[in-house]
Every structure is written in structure tokens, then in C-alpha cells.
């Protein structure tokens, strides 16, 4: 075990670790503001950096959705104040088509990558991995720090792209070429697209640095007695997430580099037979295939949705078990289903491409593999429900979000069975049904997992509690709001309303939902404002929240609750605790909980 060493791999990376090897515990470095809060190598600080950056992005991404919901809900109205904010992008108080498409594109990019990947994995992998496996820090605190700062650089590049004269990327978060490859086809495909590619490349670097670190840490730095099968499910989930990211993000990067070549080096990877009407010019490129990009993109893009949802599943499993005062049901089945989902994640990407002219036989293979995912997902859902069965539930805000997650995951997962079936996908592909499906199953669900984690571990992060009343309001408004927004949207999709339309009034077949669109927009704004209240609660409680008075306020078994209320860099003041049992001995032998550090008693029953 080189846990002790990493504690000190701080100022002098990779040098003279042995010098300190005899020392354990809290060891006060001379910390300046810069090393403590900015270029910190403490995983707990890096976690907070990821979390707060993610929150800033979430607010911006959410605000974007409010703006385009305004257009969708009130296509005939004008909002002069929009012109004050957005200038030419909202000429005459109406969001222009280019601006609308830029908004949806950036909303998708920001939330999928910067909030639900960077913000979610970055936060909880950093926070929980060392604390729950019993390590003093990550395998490489320095790479961990770099991971955040690459994320930061990616954020800066994407943020800058919002202020370009031709606007940010606007070809959808999937940025399919040729639209994304040719500046002549769209304003957003000019400089904005280059910024997008560079930003995403930096993001991939960040994600790889983080992921490799998480995998190494989990495999090598578990404390004594912490076998893989004693790991809390959070760690298993974060482990599979990291594996998925490491194996799939490079494929996206390669796809983006080819796109960059097509844009600037005259190659024809994705381009063929193109005539640009705006310049009246036929391009010389022949023989490329835009479908190739879709294969490369979705080879990441599909695992990406599991990269988003697996950590949420892990957080929910843990929080649910702690607050049900009952072991998570079917631990091995939970791990097995995570594993199955991780494997299948790589084998289903072409279900996003059923109507691209894909060979129907190939399509049928992907139907089979896609619907197979429903089996491990079903196992997880039934196991969660059984976990709360005959429990003694404490409905804390974290627990509410966990239950909400399961409900949303069921609803969104079931509509996935519609879309994964190629026959139905012919009708439903690229309609609002898809929008409703993925917002519920990976957007809102993943957010619920994240909130569940934040509410549960906030006391560990900051030594204070979040305000309960605001938390409950936050939960109920978000939960009800999410269903009100996305449930009726399925009907719009069944009616065939295509997604990425900013105004349906010109269509005889699609203009029957004007009232509904207004309703959805209104609810979206209410839900957004409640998120702002959460953000306020978060920052207010960091400074003014009720103080945590005991080290283990939830009565949980895992190792992070054996650290002091305000753990220093290195987490445990003395020896790293030794683990004697799995993480879920709740309600066993009449005892409410038995921490992992407690040796197995002589008369203890077996599980």
C-alpha cells in the first residue's frame, strides 16, 4: 500500500515519497491560498471545484433552455428585453433561428458533457473513491489536479465560443457533418465549430486523466480488508463509469480530429457529392461518408449516456440503503447488472442510426442488443424497490431524490423500449418522443442522482447541513415539474412532431399543441427558478448551515463517516482504518448499523 505516500505527493510530485513514509495522519503542509483552493491536489477540494464549475454550467445550460422554451411556448410573441441581452440574435425581441439552434446545441453540449459527465463523475468520483475505499488521496493527485484544469480550460473555450460574431456551434450536440463541417451551410459551423471541437478535445483529455486515475485508485489503493466485493456500490458504479469513459472518449476524439481535417485540410472523410447553395459551389470532395462520423460519434455517444447514469445509480443505491436502514437488495446482482450494462453499452451504438440507411440486418442485431439492456435495468429497478420493502425509511432529501430517481428511471427506461425497437423508431426517431425519453431517463434522472448525492454528502463536504425546508421544496417542485414537462411531450412525439423545430405553426400536421407548448414552457421556468433556490441553499448552507455535530450523522457504514467532521488532506488523522465486512450491514442481528471497520463478531449471523 502506498497510501501514505500519496498524501505527500503534493508539493514534490513523484519525488522522495519515502522520506515521509513513517508519518501518518494529519500533516500540515504550509498551504497557501493557491495550493489550497486553486491548484489543489486534495481530492476533496478538486471535487468541490468540479461541483461548483458544474453548477455554474448547469445554471447557464438551464438558462439556455428557458430562453428557447420561451420561443417554443410563445412563437408569436416578442420579448424586447431579449434583444437587450442577445442583440442581433434576438432581433426585434424574437429569438432568431441561428440563435435558437445555437441555444439547443450548447444546452445539450453543456449539460451532457460539462454538467452530467464532468460535474457528476468529477464530483463524486473525486470525493467518494478515496474516502470510501480507505485511501488518503487518488493514485496521482497531480494528474487529478490536471484533470480539473483541463476541464476548466475546456469550459473557457466553450464559454468563449458563446461570444463569437458567428455564434457558437449550432448543429446539435451530435454535430453531424456535413452541417458541422461546412461553414457555408450554417453560421454556427464557422469559428464556433472549431471552438467546439477544441473545447471537446480538452474535455476528453480531462476525462481520460480523471478516468485513469479513478481506475488505478480503485484497483490499487483499497485499504486492508477492502476486497472488491466489499466495495460500496457507488465505487463499483464509478469504476465502470471510468472504464467506459477511458474506452470510448478516444473514439470521439478521433472522430472530431477527422472532422477538423475535413474542415481545414481538404480531406473527404465525411464529405461527398455536396453542392452549397449559399455560394453556388459544388465541392470537390467525393467518396466520404457522413455516416462514418455517426458511427464514431455514437460509439462514444451511447456509452456516454451510461457514463452519465451509472454514477447516479451508484449514488442512489448507497443513499437508499442507508436511509432504508436495510442492506441494498442483491448486491452481487447490482454489481453484475452494472457490469452487463457497461458491456452492452459498447454494443448498441447503431440504435441511434436505424433510419440512416443502415443495413436492415445490422439494424436487427442492434435491436436485439439494445433491448437486452432492459434486463439488467429491470433487475436494478426491482432490487431498488425490494430495498425499500420492509425497510424503516428516513425520508431525508437525499432519500427522496433517490426514490424520485427510481421513478424517473422506470418511466424513461420504458420509453427506451419503444425507441430501441427499430420498427417503432421509424416513426419516433428524431421526434419530441426522443426528447422526452432521454430527458427523463438520463437528464432528469441523472440530476436526481446528483442531487441525491449532494444532499447526502454535503455534511461530509462542508461539515454543515443544507436547509431542510428548501430541500423539500426543491425536491417536490422538481419532481412534479419534470413529469409535467416531459410526460405530455411523449404525445407530441407520437404525433410525429420533429425535434429541433422552433415554431410548429407553419405545419398543418403539427400545430395542434400550442397550448401544451405554452404549459411546458411555464413549468420549465418554474422548475428552473427552483433550481436557483437550490443553488442559493447550497452556498448559503456552506457558510450558515446547521453544523454537523457527529462524525456519522446518517448512521452509515462506509468509511467516509469514520473520518473527522472536517477531514484534512489525507482524510484520516491516524492509521487508515481496516475493513472487516461489506458496506451494507444495516438492521443485522437487531443492530441498526454496523460500520465496515467493525470486526465480525463471534456469534454474528452470515448474510
Amino acid at each position, binding site marked *: 500500500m502506498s497510501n501514505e505516500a500519496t498524501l505527500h505527493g503534493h508539493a514534490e510530485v513523484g519525488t522522495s515519497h519515502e522520506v515521509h513514509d513513517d508519518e501518518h495522519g494529519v500533516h500540515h503542509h504550509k498551504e497557501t491560498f493557491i495550493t489550497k483552493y486553486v491548484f489543489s491536489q486534495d481530492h476533496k477540494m478538486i471535487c468541490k471545484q468540479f461541483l461548483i464549475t458544474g453548477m455554474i454550467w448547469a445554471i447557464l445550460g438551464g438558462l439556455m433552455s428557458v430562453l428557447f422554451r420561451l420561443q417554443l411556448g410563445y412563437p408569436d410573441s416578442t420579448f424586447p428585453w431579449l434583444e437587450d441581452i442577445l442583440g442581433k440574435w434576438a432581433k426585434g425581441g424574437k429569438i432568431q433561428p441561428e440563435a435558437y439552434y445555437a441555444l439547443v446545441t450548447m444546452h445539450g453540449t453543456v449539460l451532457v458533457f460539462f454538467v452530467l459527465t464532468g460535474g457528476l463523475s468529477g464530483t463524486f468520483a473525486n470525493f467518494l473513491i478515496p474516502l470510501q475505499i480507505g485511501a488518503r488521496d487518488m493514485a496521482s493527485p497531480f494528474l487529478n489536479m490536471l484533470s480539473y484544469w483541463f476541464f476548466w480550460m475546456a469550459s473557457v473555450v466553450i464559454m468563449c465560443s458563446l461570444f463569437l460574431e458567428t455564434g457558437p456551434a449550432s448543429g446539435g450536440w451530435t454535430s453531424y457533418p456535413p452541417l458541422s463541417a461546412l461553414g457555408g451551410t450554417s453560421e454556427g459551423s464557422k469559428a464556433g465549430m472549431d471552438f467546439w471541437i477544441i473545447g471537446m478535445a480538452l474535455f476528453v483529455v480531462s476525462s481520460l486523466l480523471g478516468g485513469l486515475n479513478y481506475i488505478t485508485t480503485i484497483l490499487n489503493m483499497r485499504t486492508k480488508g477492502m476486497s472488491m466485493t466489499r466495495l460500496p456500490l457507488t465505487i463499483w458504479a464509478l469504476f465502470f463509469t471510468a472504464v467506459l469513459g477511458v474506452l470510448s472518449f478516444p473514439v470521439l476524439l478521433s472522430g472530431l480530429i477527422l472532422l477538423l481535417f475535413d474542415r481545414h485540410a481538404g480531406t473527404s472523410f465525411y464529405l461527398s*457529392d455536396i453542392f452549397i447553395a449559399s455560394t453556388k459551389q459544388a465541392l470537390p470532395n467525393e467518396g466520404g461518408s457522413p455516416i462514418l462520423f455517426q458511427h464514431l460519434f455514437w460509439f462514444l455517444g451511447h456509452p456516454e449516456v451510461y457514463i452519465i447514469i451509472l454514477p447516479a445509480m451508484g449514488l442512489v443505491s448507497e443513499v437508499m440503503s442507508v436511509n432504508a436502514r436495510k442492506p441494498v437488495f442483491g448486491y452481487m446482482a447490482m454489481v453484475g447488472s452494472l457490469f452487463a450494462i457497461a458491456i452492452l453499452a459498447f454494443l448498441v451504438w447503431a440504435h441511434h442510426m436505424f433510419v440512416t440507411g443502415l443495413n436492415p440486418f445490422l439494424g436487427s442485431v442492434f435491436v436485439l442488443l439494445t433491448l437486452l439492456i432492459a434486463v439488467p435495468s429491470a433487475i436494478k429497478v426491482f432490487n431498488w424497490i425490494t430495498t425499500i420493502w420492509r425497510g424503516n425509511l428516513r425520508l431525508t432529501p437525499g432519500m427522496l431524490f433517490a426514490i424520485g430517481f427510481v421513478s424517473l428511471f422506470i418511466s424513461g427506461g420504458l420509453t427506451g423500449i419503444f425507441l430501441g425497437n427499430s420498427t417503432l423508431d*421509424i416513426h419516433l426517431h428524431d421526434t419530441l418522443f426522443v426528447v422526452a425519453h432521454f430527458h427523463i431517463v438520463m437528464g432528469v434522472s441523472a440530476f436526481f442522482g446528483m442531487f441525491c448525492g449532494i444532499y447526502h454528502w454535503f455534511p461530509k463536504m462542508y461539515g454543515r447541513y443544507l436547509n431542510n425546508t428548501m430541500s423539500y421544496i426543491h425536491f417536490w417542485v422538481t419532481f412534479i415539474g419534470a413529469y409535467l414537462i416531459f410526460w405530455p411531450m411523449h404525445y407530441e412525439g407520437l404525433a410525429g412532431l420533429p425535434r429541433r423545430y422552433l415554431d410548429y405553426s407553419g405545419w398543418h400536421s403539427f400545430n395542434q399543441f400550442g397550448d401544451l407548448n405554452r404549459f411546458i414552457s411555464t413549468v420549465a421556468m418554474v422548475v428552473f427558478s427552483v433550481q436557483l433556490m437550490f443553488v442559493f441553499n447550497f452556498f448559503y448552507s456552506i457558510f450558515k448551515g446547521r453544523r454537523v455535530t457527529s462524525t456519522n450523522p446518517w448512521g452509515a457504514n462506509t468509511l467516509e463517516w469514520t473520518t473527522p467532521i472536517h477531514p484534512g488532506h489525507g482524510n484520516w488523522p491516524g492509521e487508515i482504518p481496516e475493513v472487516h465486512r461489506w458496506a451494507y450491514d444495516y438492521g443485522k442481528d437487531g443492530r441498526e448499523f454496523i460500520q465496515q471497520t467493525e470486526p465480525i463478531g463471534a456469534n454474528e449471523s452470515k448474510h
Partner: protein
Amino acid sequence: MSTIFLILILLLGFLITFQIAKASEYVGILKGEKKNLEQNNRINGFLMIAFLVLGLIGVYWCNELYKGKILGESASDHGEKIDTMLHITIAITGIVFFITQILLFWFAYKYQYSEKRKAYYFPHDNKLELIWTVIPAIALTVLVGFGLLYWFHITGDAPKDALQIEVTGKQFSWIFRYPGKDNMFGKKYYQNINDEKDNSLGLLWDDPATHDDLVVNTTVYLIVNKPVKFIINSRDVIHDVGLAHFRMKMDAVPGTPTTMWFTPKYTTDEMRKKLNDPEFDYELSCDQMCGRGHFTMKGIVKVVTQPEFILWRAKEKPNYARVMADKTPAAPVQTDSTKTPTAKLNTEAPAKLVANAK
């Protein structure tokens, strides 16, 4: 002014919430943690069951409200299969949805914290887990089975006698080409595309097969009860031929032609009567993000009877005839055509185009 007013109200509402939240926190401390937890549990447990009941009513009500607005009966034979598949899927997923949601919220309500209850130590049960692995697997086998049966039928080869129409998407409209009497599409090459010279598809005039090809914009005519096969192309970016009433969809990919076939069941007139809507038209929507005009990229599909179709077809002039208004069809290539420009069209076009062609 009203905006400022709205913001003020919001801020005020927030302040009140915040004050209540702060006050209830103090009250909570005074009452003691345990009592506080019990009270919160009761409130939220009740809300859980209330959410379930109101949610189920909401699901029913939402369905009543919108089921009449989702396009009605399919207008193509393939669409019928897709609708059947939809109903099977709704039935199976619906059962799972209601069972799991009801259990989830019922348990959340029923097993909320009580001093008297002890949580039941129940770490795993292989039999139970086997049951809920096998049952979903069986249900999914059914869904995959039906799905693939229909899928292969829909994506299978079109009948030989199908009406062939080439569909080409461009930013932001649709172009349709009929093969003419020879039933053959003439050759085309994208480098020849020239909108000013009325050659929007880049047809090669030295291929005689192009001469009777009919090229029309925006509105396409189909024959009722006759299978139609679309050969789909794109001139610039990826588009998608979306036919909501026929339940069909296929991408238009530049450089890679795709196909789709179906049989329309009702003429436009029949649909108008059926829906009691004299303005009804089948609309062709672009379903793949293609740029600023994506949401306006509309085509019209007119389904007519065979005689009506023949009449319409006879009236339309082939593209070649439009371009060569004054030329004899037998001599499309004229190097000296620049000397005899017509009033409407510059006949230099074909000569240059052929010269450029490979």
C-alpha cells in the same frame, strides 16, 4: 415594466420561502432532531402517496386530452404495422409501469420511519432475482420478435411494380424526380448542379434517359394503393424524409442514396373527408437538423387516384424540355449554342455541363 414587476414578485416569493425555511430550521432544532425527522417523514410520506394517486389520475387525464391529437389512423400499410407494434409495446410497458410505480410509492409511504418497526435484514434472494431476470427477458423476446418481423417487412425490397420517385433534400426544400416513360432515371453528377440554369439535380443531358425525367419542387404526387419507392438523396447536408401520417422516415445522406417504400391507403381527398378538414395535406417534414431553415423545410405529398395521376403527369414538362425549350431533343450538345440564346434560358448550360462532366 411588467417584467420588473414579475422579477420583484419572484424575489419576494423567494424571500418569504427563505424566511420560512430558516424559521422552520430553528423550530426543528428546538423540537429535537428525532421529532423533526418524524414530522418530515409523515409529511413526505403522505406526499409520496398523494403524488402516486394524483399522478395516476394525471396520466389518465393527459391521455384523454391528447389521444385524439396524435394523427389518428395510419395512412399507409407499413404504418399499420408500426401502430400495431406500438400498441403491443404500450400494453407490455404499461403493465410494468403501473406495477413498479405503484410498488415504489406505496412502499415509500408504508415503510416510512417508525420507532416500532425494525428494518428487515434481507440482503438477497436468488429465487426472486431469477424471477425478475427471466420475466423481463421473456417480455423482451416477444417485443424483439414482433419488432423484427415488422422491421424486415418494412425494410424489405419494394415490389417490382412500385412507382419510383427520387427525392432530394437541399437547404431548405425538397426536389422530386420521376423517371418518365422509359422508367429509368437518367444519369446525374453533382458538379453539374446549377439552379440558375434549371438543373437543380445536375442531370447529364447527354444521357438520353434524362430527357423524359420529370423534376418538380415541393409537391410530390403518389398513386393511392400503389406501392411507391423513394430513392433518397441530399444535395448538401443530411436531411430526413419524415412522413408522419404514413409513419415513415429515412435520412437523406449526401453521397449515399437511401430507400424507403410504402403503399398509401387514402387519397388526400379521402383524408380530407375522413378528418373533416378541407385544408388537410400530407406533409413531408425534414426530421434531421439541417441548418437555420430546418423547421420550415416542408414538402407536400398529394395522394391521388391513377387517372388523376396520369392527367397530372401529362401536364408537367420534363426538366429537359424546360431547359431546351427551343432545341430539338435529338441534339442536346451544341458547341455553338451561345449564338442562339433564348429569351428565357441560356442554352449554353448543357454544352458547358457536358464538357465538365466526367
